[in-house]
């Protein structure tokens, strides 16, 4: 167009020459203006990877891992809750219903499928951040990590995402990196617990070096939980036939018990390490709090609460609590607190989840004692727990196993543990169909449909259920 305008200008009168000059100038300006639309520009708001190499960003990076972890846990609490008796489908979404009825092994389930990318993101981001912060930690003066407690916190987060995967999945892919696919763990699945324990160990060592009791006790408590989880996981993989599920399986893991004792030494009675969601980290494929108290898709289970007939939320106060303490026969106050925390509209949609706690350490030790037929220690542990819970001491009735099961049920409510307890105690959730996979087999969430579609190394065809969980 530029050339054409010049050619026209030569053939025309003086006035036209003037006009042509204006046109040429305009065209030049326009062509010059095209550079405005180049796409190869630096967006000042974009965080480029090089920025993550600056130690000044370490705290922010760890906070990001923490936010991602909370998003992941928030969703796992919902899917485990719906798959167990903790939550019951009360809305319109079919895939909540299917989880509620015990169909935990469908790769297509939109909620277990939807949460998978979030857990993967947290796993990858945690590994990446650990690499960055360890580099800072070893660097020479000037580019060093400014707050080493950030690294202890990061190790704890990294350990937690691995154990969260281990506790709730059949299998997982952990070696993929950006656009490079990796195969699932398969028979080596327990490596997720090993990774988790290794991260916690680093956290504990560093926290002790720093004299940081907060992250030492958190990591100790979580390592006890991870070791306990690993022992349970080994129980269900690969054998899942119903015959092995009839007898309750109690964990007596020396490592878990040692960690629980060490954690208790640092925890005040009733201590809880909690993760709170907020407007910034509440998102995900779904938000469990939103689904429970806003959208009303799922509600607290019918064995736990009395439902308001006019709504899907529990009745206010103790009137809304159904489950009773097996010793006092009174409505369970621990559950009442947990319901207040998760499942009432007044709670709001920002779910708070307990990651590790003093009561869980007592439960781990009580279970180990019961497995070892150490009645004295079992009684002592259970009654320490019950004293903190504000309920009467246990004196032998109901049976020891039942008081343990109840203790886990109310003290670990909505913490993503109930599904495995259903399986190992042979307790069927109230809504499971008798022909559902959860009813028949100790199965957990599969590698998701979307992961299978995008990763040819994952089980194929994408929609197929794992052979062990059909």
């Amino acid at each position: 167009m530029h050339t054409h305008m010049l050619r026209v200008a030569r053939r025309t009168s003086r006035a036209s020459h003037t006009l042509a000059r204006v046109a040429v100038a305009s065209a030049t300006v326009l062509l010059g203006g095209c550079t405005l639309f180049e796409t190869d520009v630096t967006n000042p708001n974009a965080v480029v990877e090089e920025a993550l190499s600056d130690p000044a960003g370490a705290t922010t990076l760890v906070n990001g891992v923490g936010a991602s972890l909370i998003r992941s846990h928030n969703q796992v609490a919902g899917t485990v809750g719906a798959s167990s008796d903790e939550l019951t489908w009360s809305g319109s979404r079919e895939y909540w219903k299917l989880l509620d009825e015990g169909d935990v092994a469908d790769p297509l389930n939109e909620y277990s499928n939807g949460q998978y990318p979030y857990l993967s993101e947290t796993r990858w981001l945690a590994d990446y951040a650990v690499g960055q912060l360890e580099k800072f930690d070893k660097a020479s003066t000037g580019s060093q990590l400014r707050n080493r407690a950030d690294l202890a916190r990061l190790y704890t987060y990294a350990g937690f995402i691995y154990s969260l995967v281990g506790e709730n999945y059949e299998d997982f892919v952990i070696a993929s990196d950006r656009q490079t696919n990796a195969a699932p763990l398969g028979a080596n699945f327990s490596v997720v617990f090993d990774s988790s324990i290794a991260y916690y160990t680093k956290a504990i060592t560093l926290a002790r070096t720093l004299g940081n009791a907060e992250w030492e006790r958190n990591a100790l408590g979580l390592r006890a939980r991870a070791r306990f989880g690993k022992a349970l996981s080994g129980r269900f993989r690969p054998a899942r036939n119903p015959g092995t599920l009839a007898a309750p399986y109690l964990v007596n893991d020396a490592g878990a018990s040692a960690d629980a004792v060490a954690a208790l030494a640092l925890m005040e009675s009733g201590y809880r390490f909690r993760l709170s969601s907020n407007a910034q980290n509440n998102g995900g494929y779904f938000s469990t709090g939103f689904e429970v108290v806003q959208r009303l898709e799922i509600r607290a289970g019918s064995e736990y609460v009395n439902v308001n007939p006019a709504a899907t939320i529990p009745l206010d106060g103790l009137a809304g609590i159904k489950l009773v303490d097996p010793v006092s026969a009174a409505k369970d106050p621990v559950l009442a607190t947990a319901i207040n925390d998760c499942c009432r509209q007044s709670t709001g949609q920002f779910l708070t989840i307990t990651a590790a706690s003093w009561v869980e350490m007592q439960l781990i030790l009580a279970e180990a004692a019961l497995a070892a037929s150490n009645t004295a220690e079992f009684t002592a542990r259970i009654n320490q727990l019950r004293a903190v819970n504000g309920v009467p001491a246990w004196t032998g009735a109901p049976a020891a196993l039942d008081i343990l099961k109840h203790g886990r049920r109310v003290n670990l409510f909505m913490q993503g543990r109930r599904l495995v307890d259903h399986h190992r105690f042979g307790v069927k959730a109230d809504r499971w169909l008798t022909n559902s996979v959860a009813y028949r087999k100790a199965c957990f969430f599969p590698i998701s449909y979307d992961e299978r579609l995008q990763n040819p190394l994952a089980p194929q065809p994408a929609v197929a259920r794992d052979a062990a969980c059909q």
Partner: protein
Amino acid sequence: MTRQFATSGGFRQAQLTNIGQIDGSGYEFNLRGQAWRSARSTVELFANAAYLKQTLTSLGGAPPLKVGYARYRGFMREGDPLGSLYAPRLAVPCNGAPKKNSAGADILCLGADQLPIKASLNGPALTRAQLLQYFSVPRDIQTGAVQSALQPVLADYDGNGNVFEQNVGDVIPDWSGAFVGSFNLGTAWKFQTLMEWRTGFKVQNLTDGFRGSQHPSIGSNLKEFDEIAAAMENPASTPEQRVAAAETYIKHNRRLLEPGLHQAEDGDFIRLREIALTYNIPSRLVSRFKSRNASVTLSGRNLWLATKYSGQDPESNENGRGSTGSLEGNFLVSTDGFGLPLQKRYSLIFNLGF
């Protein structure tokens, strides 16, 4: 296009990637003629037909891309027409020896006494006698227990080993075109019509998939489903009536639980896109208003539709509700998912030219 890499690699967001190649070819035929001409009137006709074939020839080694969420059954697979759909297909009666699929295996088919219903994921097709026994008592199809006891028997027609993903067509029309008519009477009257047609494509009818399904809240609100459910759970109905209802359920209303089942329908249609009648007001009248010209037009859009599509509108598309910049924005078409049908629209237009 945007590609979702495996999220185990750490990233949830799809990446804009130049990963493949689409080959397209087509033909277009136009026919224009003056059917009538006299001193005062003309009739002009125009017909158009266009054929388009688009094939995804390469994804650069990437696995197939899924378009939309699990219930939308679109895929981008190498060698496929764009917009191909993969969904479960029911087994049908054998009528002789089983046919072979492309893998050389027998395609599962039904014996003379069997219905395409099984009681468990890997169970055999049930016989009518077994179903009569099951339906010797009334059953509530809205309960999970009954739904899981009445599962569809699916077959592998494609030989891909995946009964949940069988090719059922594609969502982009093979042929499309229009008919235009224009009738002029003197300088005062003009009558115009535009009809559009499309053929050779499928519509994913998810709206009715939900509405006519067994879902107790957002489903089960079509009469056809109510009749099925009523027959199954009515104590006064006979086992034969209940089995007949179960057969209808499996063949038509079993939705959502096996995503895509019964979802793809032929979307062929012809629609009266526009019809308009214009009256040019004589200049002697126009000049009184100091205008050069004036006209009045009465027009209507989307006044008539002929289609065998059972949903609300074969042109309805879910994606109209959301972003169009993604893979879904480009390829999630012909997806009837709670979108609005095209409205009929009437216009009365006055034109004044100065």
